[in-house]
C-alpha cells in the first residue's frame, strides 16, 4: 500500500472519536451479566471452604433441603458426572505440572474459598439462607502458606501424586555472567518482595448459563475476554460439541485479565445448568470475589546487578520464587507470569550478561494467574530498582545511568539477553520527551530546596518494555486452543450502512470504537454509519478476543484488511454500474467518487440498492459480493514489543510514613495510535492500577491460609482523592508487520507505575540511607525502614 491508513482522506485513524454506545452506559441502560434475568432461572450460592487445607469428612444437607425456595443441592461428587476435571499445563512451559481440578472440591479442600457445595434456589437470598444450614465436617490439615515454606520438605505436599510443591522451574543463562560480575566496580544485591493483590473488578464475576434441552444447546452469558476459548473449554468438559455452546459477552463491569480465565465456579454453573436443564445464575458477592478471583504477583525475587564506575551495566542476575495457590489456572496456566519475569528483566538495557531462575510453587491460597501487566510490574520493579541502586552506589544520576545503558534507538532490530526480538523501540526518544515534560532540572532544584526545610520529596523513573500483539507463541504452541489470530467480517447493507463483526471483545477499552474507526477509514464512510458487533460466538468470526494488549494490533488489523477488501468489492460493482475502471474510482464520505478530482458518481446507498434489489440491471455474469472477511495474525515477530518510561514525583511524610503522589508522567510508544484519547485513558487506568499495587493493594493471609482482609473495606484500592493527575505523551514507532502499524497499549501503565513509585520513595528517603524493595509501600513499612516503627 502506498498510502498509510492515517493519510487517507477523511481518516479516522489518529482521531479521538468518542465511543459509540457510551450514552447507554451513562443512562443506566447497560446490560451486564449481573442484570440478566431469564425465564425459569434459578440462583446459585456456593458453600466455600472455610479452611485452606482440610479433608471433607461429612456433609449433611438435610435441613438445607427443606428450606424455602430450594431447588437442588449439589456436591462436588454429584457434579463430577457432568463436568470432567482439567489440568492447567502448557507443553512449551517445560516441566510445568498441576493436578486435576474439579468445579467443586471432592474429598479435600485446598484453599479457603474453594467451592464445596452448590445451593440452587429461587432467589440468591434463599440460596444463601439454605447454604447456612448445610453442615460440613472438615478435618484440618496443615496448610502451606508462605512461598518460602512450600519447598521445605517438612511441609505437606499439596498434591501427593505430584511428589512435591514445585510446579515449574526455569533457568536461563546468557553471556558471561560470572566474569561480568567479577569486573564490576559495584554490585548491588537485594531481595524484592511483591505482595499478592487482585483485580477487584467493580462488577464481580457473573455468569448465567442456560441449557436448552429442546435445542440441546448451552448459552452462556459471561463477561469473558475470550469467548471462543470459553466455548471450546465448556464444550470439552461438559461433553458437548463446540457448536452446542454459545458464549455471549456483552457489557462487562471491568476485567483487566481477571475475566480471561476458567474458574471452578463458572464451570460449576455451566454444569449445573446442564444438570437442571434450566438457566442458572451466579453473581459473586464481594466477599467471595476476594478468595475466588485469581490473585496476581506474590513474588520474592533475589536480584543482583553489577556496574562499572563509568555507569555501564555489566550483568543482571535474578532468582524468583512465586506462589500460585493449589492449582495452575486453566488453560493459560499460572507459570506465565514467572516466565515473563525471566524474559523481561533487564529488557530495556544493552547488557548481554544475564542469569535467571524462577520457581513456581503450590500453596494453600487462592489461585494465582495472569492479571494486567503479567510479569511486567515485577520485572520492571526489579530491573529499575537495581539500576537506581547501582547508580546510587557509583554516585551517578538515575537519568545518566539510563542514558548510558538503554538500547540505542538506532540499534534495531535486535534482541535482548533473554532472546526477545525487538523490531523498533524508542527508549532514548522517550526519555528525552519525558525529561522535557517534567522539567527535570527544576524538579531537582525544588526537591533540594524543600529537603532543606525537612520536606522529603522524591523523583523516580522506570523504563519498560511491554509484550503486545502475541502470536501463537503464547498459548497455541503449548497446546491451548486459544486463537492467536482474529477475524473481522464487514458488510454493506442495503441502505449503505456498514456492519463489522469482530472476534475481539469489549471490556471498556473502546474495542468497538477503534474497530469502527478502522472500518470507516478503510471503507471511506462516516463512522456513524458503521456498527460493530462483538462478543458472541454465534455471530462473530472465530478469534482470540481481547487480552495481552492485542485488540487494536491484531483485531484492528483484521478489520482494516476486511474493510479494504470490501472497498475493493464495492469499487468493482461501482465500475460495472458506472462503466468505469474500478481503479479510477474511490470511496469518500459514503459515496463513490472519481479518484482523480473527487467528483461524486454515486452514493453507496444507491449502489447497494441496485445490488440487492435490482441485480437484474447488472450484467448476467456479474455477482456483487458485499461482505468481506479477513483474518490476521503477526508472523514475523512472536510479539510486538512496545516501550516507554514513567516518572513519579511524590512526598514522603517521615513522621507518619504516608506517601503523597504529586505528579506522574508517562511517555510510551505503542506504534500507530488509532484513538489518542482511548490510548491515553488506557495508560492512565493502567497506571492507577499499578499505583494501587505500589501503595495499597494486598491480599493479606495469616499463617493458617486465611485471607484476613477479604472485603472492600480492608482491601484498599486507589480512590479519586489520592491519585495524581497523569501526563501522557507518545513516541510513535509503528510495527511494519501490519498496514495499520498499531501495537498494544492496555498494560503499559501497569508495567512501570509501581517501579517508579518505589524509586521515588527511595529517592525521597536517600538522606536516611533507606532502600526499600517491597510493595505495597504502606506507612508501617516505611516507618520500619526509617527505624521509627
Amino acid at each position, binding site marked *: 500500500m502506498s498510502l498509510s491508513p492515517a493519510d487517507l482522506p477523511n481518516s479516522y485513524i489518529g482521531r479521538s472519536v*468518542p*465511543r459509540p454506545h*457510551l*450514552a447507554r*452506559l*451513562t*443512562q*443506566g*441502560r*447497560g*446490560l*451486564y451479566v*449481573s*442484570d440478566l434475568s431469564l425465564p425459569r432461572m434459578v440462583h446459585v450460592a456456593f458453600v466455600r471452604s472455610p479452611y485452606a487445607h482440610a479433608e471433607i469428612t461429612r456433609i449433611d444437607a438435610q435441613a438445607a433441603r427443606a428450606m424455602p425456595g430450594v431447588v437442588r443441592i449439589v456436591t462436588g461428587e454429584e457434579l463430577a458426572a457432568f463436568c470432567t476435571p482439567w489440568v492447567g499445563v502448557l507443553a512449551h512451559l517445560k516441566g510445568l505440572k498441576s493436578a486435576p481440578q474439579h468445579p467443586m472440591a471432592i474429598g479435600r479442600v485446598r484453599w479457603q474459598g474453594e467451592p464445596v457445595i452448590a445451593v440452587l434456589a429461587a*432467589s440468591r*437470598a434463599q440460596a444463601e439462607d439454605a447454604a447456612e444450614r448445610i453442615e460440613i465436617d472438615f478435618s484440618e490439615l496443615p496448610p502451606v502458606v508462605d512461598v518460602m515454606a512450600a519447598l521445605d520438605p517438612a511441609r505437606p505436599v499439596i498434591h501427593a501424586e505430584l511428589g512435591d510443591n514445585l510446579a515449574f522451574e526455569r533457568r536461563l543463562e546468557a553471556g558471561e555472567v560470572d566474569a561480568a560480575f567479577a569486573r564490576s566496580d559495584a554490585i548491588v544485591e537485594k531481595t524484592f518482595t511483591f505482595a499478592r493483590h487482585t*483485580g*477487584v*473488578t*467493580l*462488577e*464481580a464475576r457473573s455468569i448465567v448459563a442456560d441449557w436448552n434441552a429442546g435445542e440441546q444447546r448451552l448459552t452462556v452469558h459471561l463477561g469473558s475476554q475470550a469467548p471462543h476459548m470459553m466455548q471450546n473449554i465448556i464444550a470439552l468438559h461438559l461433553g458437548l460439541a463446540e457448536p452446542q455452546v454459545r458464549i455471549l459477552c456483552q*457489557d*462487562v*463491569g*471491568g*476485567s*483487566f485479565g481477571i475475566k480471561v480465565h476458567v474458574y471452578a465456579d463458572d464451570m460449576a454453573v455451566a454444569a449445573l445448568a446442564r444438570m437442571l436443564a434450566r438457566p442458572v445464575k451466579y453473581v459473586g*458477592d*464481594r466477599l467471595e470475589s476476594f478468595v475466588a478471583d485469581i490473585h496476581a504477583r506474590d513474588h520474592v525475587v533475589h536480584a543482583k546487578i553489577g556496574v562499572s564506575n563509568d555507569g555501564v551495566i555489566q550483568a543482571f542476575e535474578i532468582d524468583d520464587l512465586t506462589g500460585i495457590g493449589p492449582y495452575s489456572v486453566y488453560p493459560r496456566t499460572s507459570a506465565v507470569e514467572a516466565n515473563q519475569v525471566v524474559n523481561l528483566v533487564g529488557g530495556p538495557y544493552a547488557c548481554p550478561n544475564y542469569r535467571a531462575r524462577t520457581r513456581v510453587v503450590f500453596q494453600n491460597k487462592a489461585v494465582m494467574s495472569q492479571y494486567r501487566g503479567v510479569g511486567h510490574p515485577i520485572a520492571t520493579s526489579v530491573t529499575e530498582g537495581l539500576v537506581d541502586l547501582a547508580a546510587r552506589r557509583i554516585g551517578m544520576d538515575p537519568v545518566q545511568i539510563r542514558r548510558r545503558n538503554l538500547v540505542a534507538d538506532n540499534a534495531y532490530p535486535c534482541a535482548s539477553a533473554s532472546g526477545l526480538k525487538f523490531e523498533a523501540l524508542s527508549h532514548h526518544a522517550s526519555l528525552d520527551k519525558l525529561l522535557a515534560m517534567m522539567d527535570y532540572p527544576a524538579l531537582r532544584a525544588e526537591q533540594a530546596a524543600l529537603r532543606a526545610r525537612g520536606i522529603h520529596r522524591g523523583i523516580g523513573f522506570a523504563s519498560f518494555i511491554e509484550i503486545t500483539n502475541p502470536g501463537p507463541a503464547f498459548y497455541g504452541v503449548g497446546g491451548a486452543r486459544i486463537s492467536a489470530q482474529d477475524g473481522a467480517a464487514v458488510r454493506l447493507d442495503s441502505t449503505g450502512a456498514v456492519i463489522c463483526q469482530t472476534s475481539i471483545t469489549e*471490556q*471498556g*477499552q*473502546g474495542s468497538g470504537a477503534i474497530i469502527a474507526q478502522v472500518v470507516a477509514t478503510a471503507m471511506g464512510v462516516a463512522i456513524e454509519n458503521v456498527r460493530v458487533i462483538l462478543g458472541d460466538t454465534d455471530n462473530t468470526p472465530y478469534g482470540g478476543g481481547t487480552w495481552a494488549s492485542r485488540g487494536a494490533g491484531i483485531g484492528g488489523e483484521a478489520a482494516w484488511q476486511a474493510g479494504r477488501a470490501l472497498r475493493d468489492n464495492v469499487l468493482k460493482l461501482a465500475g460495472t454500474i458506472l462503466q468505469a475502471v474500478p481503479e479510477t474510482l474511490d470511496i469518500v464520505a459514503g459515496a463513490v467518487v472519481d479518484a482523480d478530482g473527487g467528483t461524486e458518481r454515486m452514493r453507496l446507498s444507491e449502489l447497494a440498492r441496485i445490488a440487492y434489489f435490482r441485480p437484474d440491471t447488472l450484467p448476467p455474469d456479474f455477482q456483487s459480493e458485499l461482505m468481506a472477511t479477513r483474518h490476521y495474525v503477526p508472523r514475523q515477530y512472536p510479539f510486538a514489543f512496545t516501550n516507554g518510561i514513567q516518572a513519579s514525583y511524590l512526598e514522603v511524610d517521615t513522621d507518619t510514613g504516608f506517601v503523597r503522589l504529586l505528579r506522574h508522567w508517562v511517555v510510551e510508544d505503542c506504534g500507530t495510535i488509532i484513538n489518542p*484519547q*482511548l490510548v491515553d*485513558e488506557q495508560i*492512565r*487506568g*493502567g*497506571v*492507577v*492500577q499499578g499505583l494501587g499495587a505500589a501503595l495499597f493493594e494486598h491480599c493479606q493471609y495469616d499463617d493458617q491460609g486465611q485471607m484476613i482482609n477479604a*472485603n*472492600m*473495606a480492608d482491601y484498599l*484500592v*486507589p*480512590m*479519586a*482523592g*489520592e*491519585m495524581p*493527575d*497523569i501526563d501522557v505523551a507518545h513516541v510513535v514507532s509503528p510495527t511494519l508487520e501490519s498496514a495499520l502499524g498499531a501495537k498494544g497499549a492496555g498494560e503499559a*501503565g501497569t508495567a512501570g507505575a509501581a517501579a517508579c513509585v518505589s524509586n521515588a520513595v527511595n529517592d525521597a528517603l536517600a538522606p536516611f540511607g533507606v532502600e526499600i524493595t517491597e510493595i505495597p509501600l504502606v506507612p508501617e513499612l516505611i516507618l520500619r525502614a526509617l527505624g521509627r516503627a
Partner: protein
Amino acid sequence: MNISLMVNGEQVEADVLPRTHLVDFLREQLGLTGTHLGCEHGVCGACTLRLDGVIVRGCLVLAVQADGGVVETIEGLSDSGEIADLQAAFIARNALQCGFCTPAMLIAAQDLLQHGGVPSREAIREHLSGNYCRCTGYQAIVDAVETTAQAREASR
C-alpha cells in the same frame, strides 16, 4: 411488608421482605438495573442514588426505610434531562470505560455540582472519593465534572 414510595416520578406500591435493601428492591422487583452493586457494604459507592433529594448508598438502606420516600435513580435522572450535560461531558472525555461505576459516579458528581460554582480539582476528587472506579484512574472523570461545572457557571 407493604411499602409505598415514589420512584423516578412514579408511584410504586410493593410487598418487600424486611431485610431487602433498596438496591435489590429496585433491581429485582422494579427492573431498574441502572443502580449497581459493587460491595454491598457501603464502601464502593456503586449503589449511589437519591433518596428524598439526598444521595445515599442504596445498599445500606432497607427498602422499608424508603417507605413514603422519593427515590431517584440513574434511569430517572437520565429521562428528566437533569444531568444530560454531565453525561455528555463523560462521553466526550471518555470518563467511563466499563461504565459499571458510572451511574453512581454521575449522581455523586451532580450532588457536588448542585452546590454551584466551579469546585477545585481537589474538591472534586475529595467529593468522589467514596465512589470507586477501577478502570479510568479518575482523571477523566475529574475533567468531565470540572468541564460541566465551568459550562454551567458560564451559562448562569
